[in-house]
């Protein structure tokens, strides 16, 4: 089962990597030290979560619980393979301390997930709603939380049954571990030894199967962020947020236009900007798989909060959905299949991309450095440079910049008139 579970995950993870590689090249191999520090701070240290203290603390408990309790999975697996009982019990006091801490953390995770469920389904925080948070994304979040609660319950119940069996002196169940939390569950358990063994075994299997099931759920889920947050922050944009990329393909053409003797370097012809996911960079696509749909970006977006269609979270979710669709097409029909659809228009509308003020509130708010603005800009570039389709007032502004060197219809000769005022 361990082998099958891991192999299936590897199979799906390879597909995700293949999909990400559908994107164009982008160089993010510079400044490795700064990148490592960013990853340690933002992903490992979760510094950007701290802006909102309540979810920060709850999330921290779940995060620590996930990382630390998984140490116990190692023992569970070894016990399973060799038929031992609590193989690390030889650690003595340290072992008791560890199991005790796992139990406290498990209870913390249980409670945090329950609070998260309440925030989503009872309190109905605004951040967790929106046009993009219907059907699957909504259920996805609840499935994850319920699964975590069930896993933690199984873990605690397993310990409780084990503790009771130990107390009853049943063979194979040697004294080991401290059970500060599951002690409280003892009263719920029957006294029949066989039933106890069944409960202990059932929970053991439930926990181990659950973990491998969960692992294989990740590539289909927003919960993939628990892994991708690390590469995503490592490869995130380190330049000032206000800076947009300069397009080299354009530089060549402009240089050739301004200086006829300029010979541009050989570059592959391609379209300007992005119409579909293949026109975005792999960093944009990695961003999309990393998004856990927390909605911090959308909640601070000036366009969204004033009732416009634009939602930065939806930009990321659309990109991922389209990428999945393209991936499935490749699986079914081969790499060159065209389905006549595209990210722009079939997923993201013109109205959405033109509502953006490029204020960077979304990129600032994202706890894992996702950049929805980068995608919006590429879509605008396609609309304007490939199609010449933009709102009329934008076209007028562009015409003015081109003809008068200013976004308004003023004569360049009047540019210095301000000095004549008082």
């Amino acid at each position, binding site marked *: 089962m361990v082998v099958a579970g891991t192999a299936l995950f590897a199979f799906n993870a390879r597909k995700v990597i293949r999909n990400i590689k559908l994107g164009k090249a982008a160089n993010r191999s510079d400044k490795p030290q700064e990148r490592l520090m960013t990853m340690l701070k933002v992903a490992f240290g979760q510094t950007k979560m701290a802006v909102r203290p309540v979810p920060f603390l709850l999330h921290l408990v779940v995060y620590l619980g996930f990382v630390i309790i998984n140490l116990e999975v190692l023992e569970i697996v070894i016990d399973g393979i060799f038929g031992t009982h609590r193989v690390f019990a030889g650690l003595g006091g340290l072992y008791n301390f560890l199991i005790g801490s796992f139990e406290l953390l498990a209870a913390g995770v249980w409670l945090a997930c329950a609070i998260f469920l309440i925030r989503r389904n009872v309190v109905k925080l605004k951040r967790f709603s929106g046009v993009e948070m219907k059907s699957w994304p909504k259920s996805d979040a609840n499935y994850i939380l319920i699964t975590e609660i069930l896993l933690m319950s199984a873990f605690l119940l397993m310990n409780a049954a084990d503790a009771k069996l130990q107390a009853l002196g049943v063979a194979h169940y040697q004294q080991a571990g401290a059970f500060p939390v599951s002690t409280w569950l003892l009263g719920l358990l029957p006294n029949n030894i066989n039933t106890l063994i069944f409960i202990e075994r059932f929970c053991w299997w439930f926990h181990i199967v659950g973990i491998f099931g969960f692992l294989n759920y990740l590539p289909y889920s927003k919960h993939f962020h628990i892994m991708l947050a690390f590469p995503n922050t490592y490869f995130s944009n380190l330049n000032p947020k206000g800076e947009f990329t300069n397009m080299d393909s354009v530089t060549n053409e402009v240089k050739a236009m301004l200086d006829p003797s300029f010979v541009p370097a050989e570059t592959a012809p391609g379209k300007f900007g992005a119409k579909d996911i293949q026109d975005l960079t792999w960093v944009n696509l990695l961003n999309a798989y990393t998004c856990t749909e927390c909605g911090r970006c959308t909640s601070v977006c000036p366009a969204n909060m004033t009732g416009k269609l634009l939602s930065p979270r939806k930009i990321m979710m659309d990109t991922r959905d389209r990428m999945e669709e393209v991936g499935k097409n490749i699986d079914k029909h081969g790499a060159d299949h065209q389905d006549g659809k595209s990210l722009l228009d079939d997923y993201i509308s013109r109205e959405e991309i033109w509502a953006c*003020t490029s204020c960077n509130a979304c990129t600032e708010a994202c706890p894992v450095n996702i950049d929805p603005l980068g995608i919006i800009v590429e879509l605008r570039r396609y609309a304007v440079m490939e199609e010449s389709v933009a709102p009329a*007032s934008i076209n007028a502004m562009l015409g003015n910049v081109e003809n008068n060197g200013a976004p308004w219809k003023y004569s360049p000769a009047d540019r210095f008139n301000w000095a004549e005022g008082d």
Partner: protein
Amino acid sequence: MEFKVPTMAELMAAGEEPEILFWVGCAGSYDERAQKITRDICKILHHVGLKYAVLGTEESCTGDPAKRAGNEFLFQMQAMTNIEVLNAYNIKKIVTGCPHCFNTIKNEYPGLGGTYEVIHHSQLIQDLINEGKLKAEGGESFKGKKITYHDPCYLGRGNGVYEAPRKALEVLDAQLVEMKRCKANGLCCGAGGAQMFKEPEKGNKDVNIERIEEALATEPQFIAAGCPFCMTMLNDGVKLKDKEQEVKVLDIAEITARANGL
């Protein structure tokens, strides 16, 4: 104005070079409200005796609105033409009157052959205060007045400049009050990303109304701005809320000039 604003062409003809070039920007050149800010920046430069010059009619749009709107061609055409002018004049240091020009020249020109030390006028004012060349004396007193500062996106989040404009206000001995959403969490005025030049998409509110309501909630006498586009949006908001008598929207440069009686 009581003095003549020097142009690069004149300085070059006289065989001189300025310490700093003042990049005015399109709004600062043509927009009537922003022109006042432009003149106040010149008054400050003149007052402290810094050797400066402007490009005058040789200046052209940085290309910022074209780039944000997705027209990279037009942006690079503007950028390369401007870089040619700037490099021909051997420009080393630039102060801009607009965070959008500031961001574009500072971050996006180097890749196209134009590398300069670029500062926003609030940073210049902060430097002048730190060097003791600029104080808040001889003019209008802002002592105890309630001022709230609105962070422009391309100065704040875009380039991490949060302290300079606040330092320029602190010297006034005024009462600085922060809006709920400030600094890295500041709310956009609604004009960025080429929104200044188009009608907003359908929604239930204008962004500048959302922002002005937050600003007015601090009950300020002055709203301080650092960007000509924010200035337009905030002014429109104050007018719509019928608060023109009680609340004035002023640029950091205007406040500094007033405090020094310039």
